[in-house]
Structures are given as structure tokens and as C-alpha cells.
């Protein structure tokens, strides 16, 4: 049973020397295996401190962290860190090493064979969508977005089960950030890694996380799925932070397939359609743009599955 939990925080407190208020206080948190958990909060909320205690960059003042059921203090810190992927906002690529050498760092420490490492590097470059010709380049020859792609590949090189990410897309321009978010989300779903992802951007937290931890002044205010955070904010602070009164935000989190109603044969033949995976926000936009009464929901094969009208967009049943 305990093996289902990737990371468990048990009454974790961290007080930095010379500060009165703990950065993280008495925090209990259970992160399930394969979950994508985003930690969101303003600066000084303790979110980064919480993250960095998992790979012991920061040591807690009291409490225990369990990784797959074992206390993280039971093995040497270097060994622990090799089993955890770590991505930081500043990327921190080694400027004197090529992209290939950067990615191969952990596999080399782990003593993998040359062929295994080469295959792993090729696989990862492909995964983060960088051409194989970049292997021999140096970090400064790459753009910021490309560098963070390498950062992600490097963190996953040793095939860790857990990835810790500290605002990895924080310093990247908005367009590239969106691209990286989408691609990373797909990668996480494909490889089923447990991800702990710190961000101060609520949109990013809602978009990426299966579950969201909202932190404020060292305490976890709420922990739950995105829609839950928006529809039932635990405190007024969470509500303010998430702007949960923002209906567009809520509509954005519901898929068309969840709300569609059966077709009754009286639909306009020219009615616009959207995909089952599209959000209700897109449905609303389409309704407003086309001035139609219904939107037909179709699947990948183009099959008409159902429809959405203005009625389904009233979030009455929450």
C-alpha cells in the first residue's frame, strides 16, 4: 500500500537560522506514484523549500520524508540524488560540456556502458524534440527554450521515477513556455514519472497538475485536483489566488466530452464542431463567434458524438 505513495511528507518543518517564522511548518503531504503535482504560491510561501527538501538540497528541521516508503536519510545523499531528476529555473547546464556530455552526466556516474548511454542520449534528445545534430554543440549555442529542453533531458537521463522541477519554465518567453508545457505534459503521460513542480503561475499550475498544492506562509492551504481548487476554494486566500470567480478559467478545465448531451437529429447541418478533448471555453468562444445554437462534438475519427448548447455552459451542477 505504501508503495503506491511516491513521496510522503510527514510533519515536515523547516526553520532557517535567524528567522522567527518557519519557511515550512508541520506539513503533511502524500504524493501518489505517477502523479503530476504542482505546488503554487507567492514568493516566500515555502514552495521551493518544500521541493528542495526531497533531494536534500535543504534539510528539514524536523519531520521525515519518505520516498517510495523509505526514509530519504537512509541512503547516502549522492545516491539519493542520482535517483531523482532535478530541473531548476536557471537551468544550470555545464557550459564547458557538450549537450551530449551534459545529458550523459548521471548515466556516467552510474557507470552505464557506452552503448547504453549513447542510446539513452539519442532517445532523450528525440523525446525533447532536439535534433541529434545538437549533441556536439555547447549550451551557449542554444536558445533558452532549447537549453531547458536539454535540462529536462539531463534530469531524466538516469531514468528516475521522480522529477523535481523548480519553476523550470519561469525564465522562458510566453510562446516557448506554452510549447514546453504541452510537450512536457505529453512526456510525463508517456513515461509515467512522478513530478513535483513548483511554480508561481496559477495558470501553469492548473494546466499541468493532476493535483495542486496551494501554499501560503509555510502552510498547505489546499491540496486537490484543479477543478476542485477552483470550485471549492478552501480559504478566501485560495480563492483570491486562483481567481476562482473567473468562469473562463473553470470552463477551460472541463472537457467538451464531459458535458455534451445526445444529438436529437434537429441540429443545423452547418453547425460548427469541436473535438471531444477541447474545453468548454473553446465551446463558448465558438458559440459566440459563429452565433450558432449548437456545437457538435466530434471524436478523432470525425464521428458526431453529441452537442453542446449554451445550457451546458452554465456551471449549475457544481
Amino acid at each position: 500500500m505504501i508503495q503506491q505513495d511516491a513521496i510522503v511528507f510527514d510533519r515536515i518543518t523547516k526553520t532557517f537560522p535567524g528567522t522567527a517564522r518557519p519557511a515550512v511548518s508541520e506539513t503533511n503531504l502524500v504524493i501518489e506514484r505517477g502523479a503530476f503535482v504542482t505546488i503554487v504560491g507567492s514568493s516566500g510561501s515555502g514552495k521551493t523549500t518544500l521541493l528542495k527538501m526531497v533531494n536534500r538540497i535543504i534539510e528539514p528541521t524536523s519531520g521525515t520524508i519518505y520516498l517510495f516508503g523509505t526514509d530519504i536519510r537512509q541512503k547516502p545523499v549522492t545516491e539519493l540524488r542520482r535517483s531523482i531528476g532535478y530541473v531548476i529555473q536557471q537551468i544550470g547546464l555545464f557550459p564547458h560540456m557538450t549537450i551530449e556530455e551534459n545529458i550523459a552526466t548521471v548515466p556516467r556516474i552510474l557507470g552505464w556502458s557506452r552503448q547504453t548511454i549513447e542510446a539513452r542520449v539519442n532517445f532523450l534528445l528525440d523525446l525533447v524534440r532536439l535534433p541529434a545534430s545538437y549533441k556536439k554543440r555547447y549550451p551557449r549555442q542554444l536558445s533558452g527554450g532549447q537549453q531547458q529542453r536539454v535540462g529536462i533531458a539531463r534530469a531524466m537521463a538516469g531514468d528516475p521515477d521522480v522529477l523535481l522541477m523548480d519553476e523550470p519554465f519561469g525564465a522562458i518567453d510566453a510562446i516557448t513556455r506554452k510549447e514546453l508545457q504541452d510537450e512536457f505534459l505529453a512526456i510525463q503521460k508517456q513515461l509515467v514519472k512522478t513530478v513535483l513542480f513548483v511554480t508561481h503561475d496559477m495558470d501553469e499550475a492548473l494546466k499541468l497538475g493532476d493535483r495542486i498544492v496551494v501554499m501560503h506562509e509555510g502552510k498547505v492551504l489546499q491540496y486537490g485536483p484543479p477543478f476542485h481548487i477552483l470550485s471549492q476554494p478552501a480559504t478566501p486566500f485560495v480563492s483570491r489566488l486562483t481567481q476562482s470567480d473567473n468562469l473562463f478559467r473553470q470552463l477551460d478545465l472541463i472537457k467538451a466530452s464531459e458535458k455534451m448531451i445526445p444529438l436529437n437529429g434537429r441540429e443545423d447541418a452547418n453547425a460548427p464542431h469541436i473535438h471531444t478533448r477541447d474545453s468548454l471555453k473553446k465551446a463558448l468562444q465558438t458559440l459566440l463567434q459563429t452565433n450558432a445554437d449548437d456545437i457538435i462534438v466530434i471524436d478523432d475519427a470525425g464521428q458526431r458524438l453529441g452537442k453542446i448548447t449554451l445550457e451546458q455552459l452554465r456551471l449549475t451542477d457544481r
Partner: protein
Amino acid sequence: MEIIFYYNTKQWLSGAIMGLFNALRVIPSLAILVLILPLMGTGFAPALVALTLLAVPPILINSFLGFRNVDPHIIEAANGMGMGARMLMRKIEFPLATPLILSGIKTAAVEVVASATLAAFIGGGGLGTFIINGLSLYNFSLLLVGAIPVAILAMTSELILSSIEKMTTRYQRIS
């Protein structure tokens, strides 16, 4: 110098050491040679000691700065990947500090070659003897016999070390 001072205030030990060597740097090379004289007398050995004392500060100060200047985020990334202290030093810190260390060695080399001529004053021998004799005898050709090789030596050591420096920092310029 401000940077050194800033770091000095953080760690008193490195502060004390760097302060000492900075002070040493201010003493002119001739003064060091003359100060050695009452301690060790004349000859080759005291000249060697004096020149070594002269070479240490620039190398030490630059190495110190080289290590201090490594981006802390690179260190954090390396730590986060499970590198131990020794591996961190060998694979990350030392290679990244190399350019500054080399430029310290370069400064030291040129300084030593130039100051070695002064060693003649305390009987250390070398090319300086020609220069000093040339000056006192008002014999310019004798002076040049000393001066030209010294200039060539200083320039070649500068050139050789510069090219080594360029080689090790190729990654900084590639585009």
C-alpha cells in the same frame, strides 16, 4: 578588489589569507629582493625564494576568484545530480575556474621574467647581470645582450600561456 573584499567578509579564513597575499602584491619586486638580502644573504637561492614569493599572489588570487566565480546554479545542478565533492571539483569547478587560474599564471610568469633581472642586484646572476653591468659601464651593446632576451622571454611566455588559455576556453567562443 571589491569582489575579493566582499567575499573576504563572508569567510574570515579565506579573508585573512587573501588579505595577506594582496598586501604581498603591493610590495615592489625590488623591495622583496632587498628584504630577503639580510635573511638569506646573496646568491641564487635568495633570488629564487624572492621570485617564488612574487609569483604566488597573482596565481592564488586568480584561482580564488576563479572558483568563486563559478555560477552557483551550476553547482546546485551538479549537486542535484548526485555529484560528490571530489567529482564536483574535478568535473565542474576546476574546469570552469581554469581560465582565471591560467591568466593568474600568465601574470605571474611575465612578472617573474621581468623581476628576475633585478635578482642581479643581490647576486642572483642571470640576464640581469648584463643589464646592470651595461648600465654602470655605459655600454649599450652589453645592456642589450641582457635586455633583448628578457623581452623575448617575457613575450614568448605570454604568447604560449595565452594560447593555452584560448584552447581551454574554446567553448566560450564557439558559435
